[in-house]
């Protein structure tokens, strides 16, 4: 894989680095959706489920507009290249994919403009998880997005694993993430208000 990644290789490892190339239209679209998700969280009296669904719907919309092709059974490679080119890079997301295989891919996002600009790390992390999940499940309905560390938890980066076939445990990742942010809903609301 070359573009839209930069491939860095040594004897033992290969990693792929995104090439951020910000596009105002997509940044604006995400900003609008993020504000809608915040607004819906407030309107619903703090229902994390509503904010999560909003983010997922936004991700599915991005998939429809920027990724979707006539592919019956997607492969990780077919999915990941347009996602990095049309979503990660235009959103200015600096990420390193530490592994990409047929079954799963691992990424470390170490720069996310949403986190920098929103000043709401919990809401930004929740939204980022939701919209990436929406993009991923649009191609891999049997898959799951696993969130490792997140900036909202004080980590310097967000760790995601994209799994094409979710295990039993993985299937509850969305609820786990939601529960984590439900516990922090007060922090989210405080940061919004």
């Amino acid at each position, binding site marked *: 894989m070359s573009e839209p990644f930069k491939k860095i290789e040594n004897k033992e490892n290969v990693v792929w680095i995104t090439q951020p190339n910000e596009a105002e239209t997509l940044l604006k679209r995400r900003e609008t959706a993020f504000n809608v*998700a915040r607004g819906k969280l407030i309107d619903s009296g703090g229902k994390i489920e509503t904010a999560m669904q909003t983010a997922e719907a936004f991700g599915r919309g991005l998939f429809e507009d920027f990724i979707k092709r006539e592919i019956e059974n997607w492969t990780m490679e077919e999915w990941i290249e347009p996602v990095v080119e049309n979503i990660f890079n235009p959103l200015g997301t600096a990420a390193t994919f530490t592994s990409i295989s047929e079954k799963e891919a691992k990424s470390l996002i170490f720069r996310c403009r949403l986190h920098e600009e929103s000043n709401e790390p919990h809401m930004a992390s929740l939204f980022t998880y939701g919209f990436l999940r929406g993009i991923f499940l649009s191609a891999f309905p*049997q898959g799951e997005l696993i969130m490792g560390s997140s900036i909202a938890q004080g980590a310097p980066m967000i760790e995601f694993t994209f799994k094409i076939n979710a295990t*039993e445990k993985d*299937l509850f990742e969305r609820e786990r993430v939601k529960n984590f942010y439900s516990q922090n809903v007060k922090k989210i609301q405080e940061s919004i208000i």
Partner: protein
Amino acid sequence: MISDEFVSTGIEKLDKLLEGGIPKGFTTVILGSPGSSIEILSKQLATTGNVLYFTTEETKEEVINTMNRFGWNPAGANFIDIASKYAQSVISGEQKRVSIYEQRSKLRLKELIEIGSSGVPPIARGEEDFLAILSNKIKTSTFEKIIINSLDFFLSQYSQEEVLRTIHAAKISNLQNRGTLFVIMTKGIHGEVFERKMEGIGDCVLELEVLQKGSNFERFLSVKKMRNYAKKIGIARYTIDSDGFVLEMIERIM
């Protein structure tokens, strides 16, 4: 006075803006942003007529509580509580997972391998097909008014293509049943292309907007589209008081 060809929205001045309400057989798409009180409008629509109300973000009880708070009678509304069904499916999935783990802890290695080889068990994703529920209920509906609040839920679970196909089928069923179908969705999430497609499906398109003017917020309801009734296109400023939507300053655009 509402003629036999029209259905009242439940808001007198909106009926006036629409010059008699919504024509029977029409599909109305309502777009709004958070802060526009679109969730209040959706409930006020359910205050008149014989109504089938799909609620996806709030439970039936929450909807009824809000209606009671405004002094609206929810008796005419029949609810399909998708919010509760969805929450229940998540809870039951979690319970199944716990029971599978409990069961597995008592199994031998060979039995474990046999279970493992059957692939992913249909638990967390084993929820109901909510889009099929929506489709079936509308197809067989005899209700005067059907309200889907909101499409956002379905768009978080299904592809836009599937949702569009379902709404298109719902529109046809509604036309045949001579009811009125209201589809509510949030603006700014799903992309402009999808919003345009939904506006294309709608016979009537209403949009709620909130504009900041200095330190104040002004809210506007615009009738963006009314098939075969061009002169009904107009805009009205509105506020929300203890009785719900209050439309003021109606302005005709065409």
